[in-house]
């Protein structure tokens, strides 16, 4: 029986690799990008902020440069106690609007802040008499930097009235700063080019919260408060849009750059929040079963239930560690284990994905050679152990009932600075 179960575990590894390879083959070589037809949309950038004075100045300068004359940039200050509000208030451009949330309404989660922005757009008349299906809301992180051609690339996707949202690719701006930041960059590239591209072709790409474009009418389809209070409100929103009948696209050939974390502890903390939010999203499983079918249902369920995989990964890691302990303590075991066949079998089962992901990353990143990609491919397999630690940390937080928002700390931004002098627009 134990041997059969061990074979099941090995099969699981092979099936996971086959699934990844299938996704890659399905997306490879296909362009599927619309051209033209992106005129007549009003773009509203929404930037939620909580203590973002290190980065918000440079972000706003870039958004102002990218924003069309009739565009809008809504910054929601969610109760910052640093200089974020003053910095944003110093921008004279009439397209920049500052929404200030103060306690007890502030700091109740990113979803609440974003719902506030939607209410401002509707009730405050910020989008005037423009039809909601011609208004696109682009959600940006405070450290987000869109590619210059981003709007021209994304807007044509919304010429199709079935498209409710589009997620651009994500890259790590400071990937040259540390190996950890580089591996996060690889993580986003792999996610976008392996899974998002294929899911986008079918119309159910995931939304990531940064560089996330949404049709206002699609948001309104989800009710007065489109965003949930989940710790991963973007995941929730994407699934609910698909279940409401909208297509969600992946625009992989343009990107938003964001800061990567250079501290392992901060990374684990961030991923534990994502893990916890993912588990909160399990409440969507009955809706997926009731309202989706076929491939979309199967893959959405796989995405939602994927936190369960940390238990499988944990037992596999435990098995490896116990084997090493056994080999250390027993000479007989060493003789049996350290032979070519067991070592090659273990290497292939563990590191085979590196030969797919490494070259893919080298090709997309543009600043790595094939061999360098292969090295990062191997490091990437080890990097994924972060998810095991983060997952168990998240489980621990859930057990003791902690659901607070563990916000990611920003690094100092070399482009950041004070706002240009000028008149101060009104705060809301």
């Amino acid at each position, binding site marked *: *029986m*134990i041997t*059969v*179960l*061990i*074979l*099941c*575990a*090995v*099969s*699981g590894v092979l*099936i996971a690799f086959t699934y990844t390879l299938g996704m890659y083959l399905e997306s490879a070589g296909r362009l599927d990008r619309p051209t033209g037809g992106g005129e007549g949309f009003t773009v509203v950038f929404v930037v939620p902020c909580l203590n973002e004075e290190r980065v918000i100045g440079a972000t706003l300068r870039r958004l102002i440069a990218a924003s069309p004359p009739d565009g809008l940039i809504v910054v929601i200050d969610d109760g910052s106690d640093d200089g974020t509000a003053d910095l944003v208030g110093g921008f004279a451009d009439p397209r920049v609007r500052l929404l200030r949330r103060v306690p007890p309404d502030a700091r109740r989660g990113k979803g609440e802040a974003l719902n506030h922005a939607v209410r401002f757009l509707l009730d405050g008349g910020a989008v005037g008499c423009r039809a909601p299906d011609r208004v696109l809301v682009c959600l940006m992180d405070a450290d987000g930097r869109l590619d210059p051609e981003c709007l021209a690339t994304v807007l044509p996707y919304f010429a199709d009235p079935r498209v409710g949202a589009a997620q651009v690719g994500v890259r790590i701006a400071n990937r040259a700063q540390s190996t950890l930041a580089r591996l996060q960059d690889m993580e986003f590239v792999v996610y976008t080019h392996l899974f998002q591209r294929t899911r986008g072709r079918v119309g159910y790409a995931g939304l990531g919260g940064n560089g996330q474009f949404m049709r206002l009418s699609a948001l309104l389809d989800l009710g007065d408060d489109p965003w949930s209070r989940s710790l991963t409100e973007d995941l929730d929103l994407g699934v609910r849009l698909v279940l409401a009948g909208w297509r969600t696209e992946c625009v992989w050939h343009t990107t938003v750059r964001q800061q990567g974390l250079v501290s392992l502890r901060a990374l684990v903390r961030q991923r534990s929040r994502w893990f916890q939010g993912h588990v909160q999203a399990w409440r969507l*499983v009955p809706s*997926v*079963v*009731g309202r*989706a*079918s*076929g491939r979309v*249902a*199967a893959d959405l*369920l*796989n995405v939602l*239930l994927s936190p*369960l*995989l940390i*238990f*499988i*990964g944990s*037992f*596999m890691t*435990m*098995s*490896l560690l*116990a*084997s090493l*302990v*056994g*080999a*250390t*303590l*027993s*000479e*007989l*075991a060493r003789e049996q284990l350290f032979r070519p066949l067991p070592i090659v079998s273990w290497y292939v089962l563990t590191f085979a994905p590196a030969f797919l992901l490494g070259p893919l990353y080298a090709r997309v990143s543009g600043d790595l050679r094939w061999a360098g990609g292969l090295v990062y491919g191997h490091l990437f397999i080890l990097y994924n152990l972060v998810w095991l630690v983060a997952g168990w940390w998240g489980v621990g937080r859930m057990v003791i009932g902690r659901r607070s928002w563990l916000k990611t700390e920003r690094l100092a931004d070399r482009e950041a600075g004070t706002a240009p002098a000028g008149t101060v627009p009104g705060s809301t």
Partner: protein
Amino acid sequence: MITITTPLAAIGSAADAGGAAFGVARLALAAAGLLFVLYVLLLVVLTLCARRVHR
């Protein structure tokens, strides 16, 4: 009762400890296999339920 010679005795029985560690390794891998089977079953059952609802 733990005596001062207990650690030395443990080292002496390292081969047994090695066997025990391998036993743990096998059990952990079997547990991973069992969880994988349960995960796949859960996905299949839920997907079939979704298909049934939409018929």
